[in-house]
């Protein structure tokens, strides 16, 4: 009976745990328990032996070559697929944009006679909104670039009715200018803060936003982008 209470301690001791002083004292006087401890250790040694032999397995000599070849093959396949995946994603994106644009257009058809504001690049006039009351500086006739109007309410200006649905102008944004443009549009929408200098293109603006002084600026000089060294985007000036 006394030996049975040491069974778990014997197992733990054989497995490598520290043998308690109590068990140590028992082992001093009990041959049977010493024998069982030896048995258990032998059993674990046999298990170790089985595992050692099993893991002495060598892979086939060609494994290393096959591993490298498979990595290379999979990588080539992945790279081959990438343009296709990118094209598919682009096509899907275009479809989504077209569908969304078509739906928005069908909800609220817009009048092409209204004023157009476009922050796009082919703009030659800079409109500087100033305090009301000053007469607008007359400007030369301007080409109507965007056919879709954006009515901009501002706090300091005469109230202008904003249509229930406003279609956003489609704008080509130069690289790196997205955030600035988004801030700009946000300020225009908010109306609580006087808007920053506004790039305008189009006609009949005076009827909607007045008074707007117009300052004419010279046309921008552009160079072809093909030459990366002389590109205006990379030029330090």
């Amino acid at each position, binding site marked *: 009976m006394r030996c049975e209470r040491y069974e778990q301690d014997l*197992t*733990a001791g*054989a*497995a*490598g*745990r520290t043998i308690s002083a109590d068990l140590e004292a028992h082992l001093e006087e009990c041959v049977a328990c010493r024998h*069982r401890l030896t*048995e*258990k250790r*032998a*059993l*674990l040694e*046999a*298990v*170790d032996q*089985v*595992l*050692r032999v*099993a*893991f002495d*397995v*060598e*892979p*086939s000599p060609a*494994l*290393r*070559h*096959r*591993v*490298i*070849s*498979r*990595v*290379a093959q*999979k*990588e*080539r396949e992945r*790279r081959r697929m990438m343009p296709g995946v990118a094209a598919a994603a682009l096509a899907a994106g275009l479809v989504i944009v077209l569908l969304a644009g078509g739906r928005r257009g069908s909800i609220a058809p817009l009048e092409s006679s209204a004023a157009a504001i476009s922050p796009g690049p082919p703009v030659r006039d800079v409109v500087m909104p100033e305090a009301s009351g000053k007469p607008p500086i007359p400007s030369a006739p301007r080409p109507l670039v965007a056919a879709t109007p954006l009515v901009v309410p501002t706090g300091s200006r005469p109230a202008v009715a904003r249509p229930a649905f406003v279609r956003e102008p489609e704008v080509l944004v130069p690289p790196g200018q997205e955030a600035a443009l988004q801030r700009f549009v946000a300020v225009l929408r908010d109306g609580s803060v006087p808007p920053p200098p506004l790039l305008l293109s189009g006609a009949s603006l005076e009827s909607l936003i007045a008074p707007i002084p117009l300052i004419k600026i010279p046309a921008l000089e552009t160079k072809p982008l093909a030459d990366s060294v002389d590109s205006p985007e990379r030029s330090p000036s």
Partner: protein
Amino acid sequence: MNDAVAPLAGRLVSDAPLDREFEERLTEASTLAFRVAYGVLRQREDAEDVAQEAAVRAYRGFSSLRNRDQFRSWLVRIAWRLALDRRKSERRRGVRELRASTTSRVHPNAEELAAGRETEQRVWEAVDDLPEKLRIVVVLSAIEGHGMREVARLLGLAEGTVKSRLHEARRRLLEMLPCVVSGTNRT
């Protein structure tokens, strides 16, 4: 540990330094990945397949691996996980049981061999019944004579944790294998 870094006939997709480094590290660690997978699957072909798949996955993440000196342990863990997944899916399909029964009929008349195989099979069954975190410690300890420090490094664990887990695993093995190994039967 004893993998010899041998020049390989197959080359990766480029000669970029990163690819060359990956290839060197993979060459050094591929045998260990194979053995780890073998510890789960016990089929050479399956283990080699898993080692290759582990290498493919490791390659995709190699550039983002912060400490490349840990590539070996990273690959081991990928191989271990892939091998476990494969065994699970094979068990679902009942493939492994079929293979095991086929293997046991290879030497029907060799009694000694059969007894050895039976012992081996029961040992493996006991190892397989261990919880995963104990099993990996047993497997890695049995491979290439890894000491506890090396096992701890491979698993990213403290050495004391590995020691404790190994003791617990051996204790459980003793309980599961009371008298299966010849010469150790209790009377």
